[in-house]
Structures are given as structure tokens and as C-alpha cells.
């Protein structure tokens, strides 16, 4: 997966850091602003515009900081983290009396990595059964993640049952069943459309206990964190499961294309669902998911899994070093 980093900031930062000036992918019509902002060029549909010969930057100057700001903002770091990061780096540049953009690049990577590494990405699945509840807003990739995750766990020889507690969205159960089949996992379905999701979750855990199945994964309906009724429903699902068995992980799925709203999602789900870890999906697109830095820091929740595609194998663990490296391109 090493070369597969279409979400790298590198494209943007390359000129800045004098990485060869080969990927100046500034759209010709970039309005009023000289910084490129097209996605990293890996698999872009349109052939990247002919590389504009950019003089290699030899020293750090005002432009460097402007471009760095633009790069961080466009990666969804958000204005606050961007400001903080730049201040921090300015101080470091001063302290180490460097003028070399390559030093700056390294410091940026370290700074991002440091921030990410403060949180422990380990998944805790030691209980038997280990119950994993998957939550999130609509369309972020919960069901797909469950399919991939079930497959991942199956590859370790563990038995898995999936509970179809999204009894709301049309064809959600069928979609999950397709994934369960692909992953070789059992599935517990609602007995009828619109059945109380909590009771489906309950039955799934019950089924696991009765049959000695090691891992339970519960899919839930997508819900906007602002809808109190649906959020209450979710905490009920959680409570009902806990009557049967402790919950090992509550995973909140966040879509990498999300902007600053990701923070509000995380805060709300942490409060009502007791989230224990984050899954960042759709990192195979051009979005960078920089908002997770703010999310981790504000909520203390670690990113535990990464989704990078729609196929069953497109799920990986989260490694701060790799993530930071992919973002910054060092």
C-alpha cells in the first residue's frame, strides 16, 4: 500500500519543499491565488496540466508560510489547527535557525505525527464475545466498514456474527447480508421491517453467546448527530446490549471528505454512544481527512481503522507515522 497515497499532501507541498518541482498541478484558472489546489495527481482523471517550471525554493520566506497555510487548510485541518501548527513551526524554525524548506517539511511531519501518536490506536477485542458497535451519520461507510472488518477478523480465524440493527433504511439489511456473505460471517436479521433496532442487537449478542461466537459486530442506521430522537435510540441500543455483555468497542465512522463538521459529529456521538475509537473512510479519494487531528485532540478518541476503497480488503490499521508521512510526503 506504500505507493498508494492519492491523499497525500505531497502534491501540494512538493513545490514548496523543492521536491523537484515536477508536479505543479495548479489549475490554470486558480483564481487570484497562486497556490495549487488540485488533488494530488496520482490517478486524477484529467491528465495533470503540464508541469509549470517552478524555481526551487531554497529558503523559507513569507510565501512559504502562506503556501503551508493553504496546504493545511485545503487538507481540512481547519483554521485553528492550521494556525497552531504554523506558529509552532515558526518557533521551531527560529529556534533551530534554519532556512531550509526541507527542515520545515520534516518538522511538519514530526509535528503531525507527534500529535497523532498521543492516542493509542489499538483495538480491544479480548472479551468473549467481543461486541463492536458501529455508529455514524448517514452514508459515511458503516456497513461497508463492517463487511471489511468482519473479513479482517475472519482472516484471523475468529468466528463473527453481524447484527443488522439498521432496520430503517431501505435495503440496509440486504446490503449488510451481502457483505456478511462475502466475509463468511453469520448475520442476525430483524424478524420484520422496522423492528426495534435494540432488540436486533440484543438477539445478535444472545446468538453469539449461545453459539460461542467470538466477535459480534452491530450495524446501526445512519443518523445525524443533531437528531436527539435518533441519538436516544442509539444510546438505548447500547444499554440493551450492555445488559447482555460489555461492549468492547464503539466505533464511530467518519468520512474523510467531511469538513469541520466532523468535530461536531465526534463530540455528539462520544457523548451519547460512548465512542471508543474512530474509523476514517474514503481515504482513497482526494480528501485528506485533516480534521481528525482536531477530532482526536478534542475528544481524546484514537483513529483505529482506515478505509481506502470499496473492496473487501480495503481496510487497514492506523499508524501515525504512515499517516503523517502520506500527508506530508517525506
Amino acid at each position, binding site marked *: 500500500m506504500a505507493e498508494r497515497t492519492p491523499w497525500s499532501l505531497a502534491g501540494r507541498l512538493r513545490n514548496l519543499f523543492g521536491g523537484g518541482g515536477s508536479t505543479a498541478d495548479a489549475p490554470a484558472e486558480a483564481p487570484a491565488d497562486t497556490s495549487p489546489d488540485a488533488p494530488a495527481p496520482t490517478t486524477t*482523471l484529467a491528465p495533470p496540466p503540464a508541469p509549470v517550471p517552478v524555481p526551487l525554493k531554497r529558503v523559507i520566506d513569507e510565501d512559504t508560510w502562506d503556501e503551508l497555510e493553504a496546504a493545511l487548510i485545503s487538507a481540512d485541518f481547519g483554521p485553528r489547527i492550521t494556525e497552531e501548527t504554523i506558529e509552532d513551526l515558526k518557533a521551531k524554525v527560529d529556534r533551530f535557525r534554519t532556512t531550509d524548506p526541507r527542515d520545515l517539511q520534516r518538522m511538519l511531519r514530526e509535528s503531525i505525527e507527534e500529535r497523532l501518536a498521543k492516542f493509542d490506536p489499538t483495538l480491544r477485542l479480548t472479551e468473549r464475545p467481543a461486541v463492536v458497535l458501529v455508529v455514524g451519520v448517514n452514508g459515511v461507510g458503516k456497513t461497508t466498514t463492517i463487511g471489511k472488518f468482519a473479513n479482517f477478523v475472519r482472516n484471523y480465524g475468529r468466528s463473527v456474527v453481524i447484527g443488522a440493527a439498521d432496520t430503517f433504511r431501505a*435495503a440496509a439489511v440486504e*446490503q449488510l447480508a451481502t457483505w456478511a456473505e462475502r466475509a463468511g460471517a453469520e448475520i442476525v436479521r430483524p424478524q420484520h421491517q422496522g423492528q426495534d433496532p435494540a432488540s436486533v442487537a440484543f438477539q445478535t449478542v444472545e446468538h453469539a453467546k449461545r453459539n460461542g461466537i467470538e466477535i459480534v459486530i452491530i450495524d446501526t442506521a445512519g443518523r445525524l448527530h*443533531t437528531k436527539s430522537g435518533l441519538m436516544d435510540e442509539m444510546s438505548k441500543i447500547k444499554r440493551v446490549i450492555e445488559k447482555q455483555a460489555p461492549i468492547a468497542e464503539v466505533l464511530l465512522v467518519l468520512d474523510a471528505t467531511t469538513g*469541520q*463538521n466532523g468535530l461536531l459529529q465526534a463530540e455528539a456521538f462520544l457523548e451519547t454512544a460512548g465512542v471508543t475509537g474512530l474509523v476514517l473512510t474514503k481515504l*482513497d*479519494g*482526494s*480528501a485528506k481527512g485533516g480534521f481528525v487531528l482536531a477530532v482526536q485532540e478534542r475528544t481524546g478518541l484514537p483513529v483505529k481503522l482506515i478505509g481506502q476503497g470499496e473492496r473487501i480488503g480495503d481496510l487497514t490499521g492506523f499508524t501515525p507515522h504512515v499517516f503523517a508521512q502520506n500527508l506530508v510526503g517525506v
Partner: protein
Amino acid sequence: MATFASLSDRLTAALANLRNKGRLSPADVDATVREIRRALLEADVNLDVVKQFTAAVRERALEAAASQALNPAQQVVQIVNDELISILGGQQRRLAFAKNPPTVIMLAGLQGAGKTTLAGKLARWLTGEGHRPLLVAADLQRPNAVTQLQIVGEQAGATVYAPEPGNGVGDPVRVAEDGVRYAIDRQHDVVLIDTAGRLGVDADMMKQAADIRKATEPDEVLFVIDAMIGQDAVATARAFQEGVDFTGVVLTKLDGDARGGAALSVASVTGRPIIFASTGERLEDFEPFHPDRMASRILDLGDILTLIEQAQRAFDEEEARKVAEKFATDSFTLEDFLQQMQQLKNMGSIKKMIGMLPGARGMREQLDNFDEKEIVRTEAIIQSMTPAERRNPKLLNGSRRLRIARGSGMTVTDVNQLVQRFEQAAKMMKTVAKGGVPQVPGMGPVPGASYRGKPQKKKATGGSRSGNPAKRAAENAALAAGKKEPASAGGSGFGLGGGAGKGAPSEEDLAALQRLLGR
């Protein structure tokens, strides 16, 4: 919520800072523009768009400054608002129908944007408009997308053309093409093609979308985008524009608390209008897009000024001061209470008023719990009291309460509650009048709309006395904040307050305003 609370705060503060000046200096303009820039970035507006936007605002604001305009704060708000609306497309654009049916509409967008649900909503809406839409299941990628469309179609009462099972089986281009032919044969006048979600960077899938377009020659290609999307909106929109090109945009999941800066970016960068907004999971949660509403949402300014003006018009400062005095001196009676209530009613729909407040989205539930009939009931009870009782609630013993209950068609409990509420309110207002912050358990920030005193008695010129509109606006803001003379605040169903001193609204005033606005 916390993350964004600072935004309106800062903007309001930045604008309030202009108030004393009466005129804008270039430095004022820069300071304000900086806050606007930050506000837009926190709302996920694309950085390039932010730069363009703030440059435009700055230029116009400087012009205003140079022309020595007297009301800078208002002018800046106006400029910002105008610019936002114009980028968002100004006028609302309608769906284009083909001269020779069927009209073909193709949906395209990222994974999870909400295309399939939207297809159902559009079908339902079109049916309501007298059309006979056909839904075509051309998302053969995502597991059971076909099934989902079939269910959604059934709910919408529309026919679904689904010749292929999906889950990777079948050719979407073929299905789309056949779908149009099927529609012609069966006299469907609109064809809605649901397609698989795809990434802008996925060359194969983008080509497939382009092929679907070529094969079906749609009258509209709608780019469906999640309101919660961040900076990637532009890269993705550009990729879709180059790949398939689209004629319009649909913004989904607007029922959340996303500020929707992406809308601005996409409209600005692609020049394509936003046509519809999707606002919930039910098929009827769907409406034509309103640029002006989106503009206030992005900046989260709400109609502060309109609101303040209305409140201003409804109340009179002199009266307010009198009532404030009454509070302070403990001579506020049930009669005054009733009068206050009635003035509130005069202000028109309270819900509508509150609905105009920024941040009111988060208070929808509280709003729904707020019952204007409450005022009518209160009125009935107080009107069944004797003047003496109204002036001195201590007279209200058990038998009097029973009589009042009978006379007003309420229960004794209702009467008891009213008296209790009155006492609480009077106590609270006394505190407010003395400058303290009320502590009222169980009372949300809402039912207030609590601006100030009394209905304006046919005053020729509306609003504050200040001849300087900027000063007036700032004063009004401070009034709403509840600390300044002769204003008030509080959480009950009427206004009031007092205190003394003129001057600029302090930080706390503005914070209080925010709190009042439901933060």
C-alpha cells in the same frame, strides 16, 4: 456548539467594534475582513473562494468607508450578505424540462452523498407536480443499491426500471440507455437515472459516468453533494465537471448542523446553480434551494438586524423603563404581567421571531415545545381576577383561586402554576433589573424573544432614537444582550430589565447575546 460558538461571537464583536466609529477606517475593514475569513474557513468554504470573497468584500467595504457612510456595521453585513447570495446563484433556478418528453435527469456524486434517497424524493416531488417519472437503477456497484431504489420507488409511488441485479453484475450504461427507451414506450415523461457513487480520482468510474451521459443525453445532470463535505468539495466538483459535467447541484443532509460552506465553493468554482436541498430521511424532506437562507447559514448571522428592528418596533423604551423600575422596586403586578403578555402577542408570531435568530436551528425542539396558546391561557386566568387580586397576588387564597379557575375555564392547578410563575418571573426580573444574572431552573433560553419593554405607541420613526444607524444597530444588539439601559433580558415570556449606563456593549454583553440566541 462549542466549535463554532466563537464564530458569530467574533463576527458580532468585530462589527460591534465599528459602532463607535460611525465611520470605517481601512484598519477596521481589515479587522472585520479577517473575522469573516475565519468564519468562512470554519464553515468549510474553499480557501481560494474565501480569498476571492474577502477581497471583494474588502473592496466594497473600503468604498463604503471612503464615501464616509454613516452606518458601517450595517453596510458591511449587507455587503457580505449580498456577495454570498450572488455567489450562491442569486435567483433560484428551476429544473429544466425537455421540449419533447421524456426529460432525462441523471444523478451523479461521491459515495454516500445520498443519491438513491434523493432519487426517491425527486420522483415523489415530480409525481406531485403531475409527472410520471421512471426510476432507473444504474447503480450496479454498491451492494443492494438496486433493492434500495426499488423500495424507495415503491414508497414514492413511481415505477422502477431494474433489469439487472447489481452487486457488480450488469452494465450501467446499457441499463441507463434501455431505461430511456423503456420510458418512451411506457409514456413516462421524466426519467431519473440513479448512478453508483464514485470518486473524482477514479478515472474508470468517471469515464463510465461520461458514457452514461453520452448514451442518454440528459436534460439535467445533477451533482449530489453532502452538505458536510469539507475542502475536498472543490477538487471533487472540478473532477465531476470535467468528467461528466453537470448542469445543477443538489445539496443533501442540510438537516444537520453543517454550515454548508461547500455549497458556496461549488457554486462559485463551477458556476453551476444549486437547485434543490435535501433536508431529511423522509421522502418529503426536500425543497427548492434558497440562496438567501444559505447565505445566513454560512455566516450564521441569521437576520440579527431584521430581528432587532422588529423587536425595536414592537416595544417602547419609555414603557420599558417604567416596567424595569417596577421590577426593581417590587411593584410589578399581575396586571403588568398581563400587559407584557399581550404586547408579546402584538409582536406577532413568537416562533417566527425566534426562527429568525441565528443558531435557532439547534433550538427547534425547544421551539416546538413553546406554546403560544400559553399566553392565551394566562390571559384568561388573569382576566378572571379582580383588579385588587391582580395588584396583590397575596390575596389569592384557595377559594379565590377556585373562583378564578372556574371563571377562566382552567383548573386550580393552572391558576397555582401561573401565580408561581409570576412570582418566579418577578423575582428573576428584579435580579435582572439590578444587573444580576437570573438562575431559573428548568427554563431554557428560548421562550424569551425577550427584548424589551413595551409596544411602540405610534412613533413615526421606528427603532432606536439614535440617528446613527450603526449606533442604533449596536445599541439594539446591546439591548438584546440584556445589560444596557433601558433594556433587559431574561428567559420568561416577556421582556424587561433595566440597569443603567450608556456605552458600548461589553464583551459580556455580546456573550450574553450569544447565549440568548441559543448557543
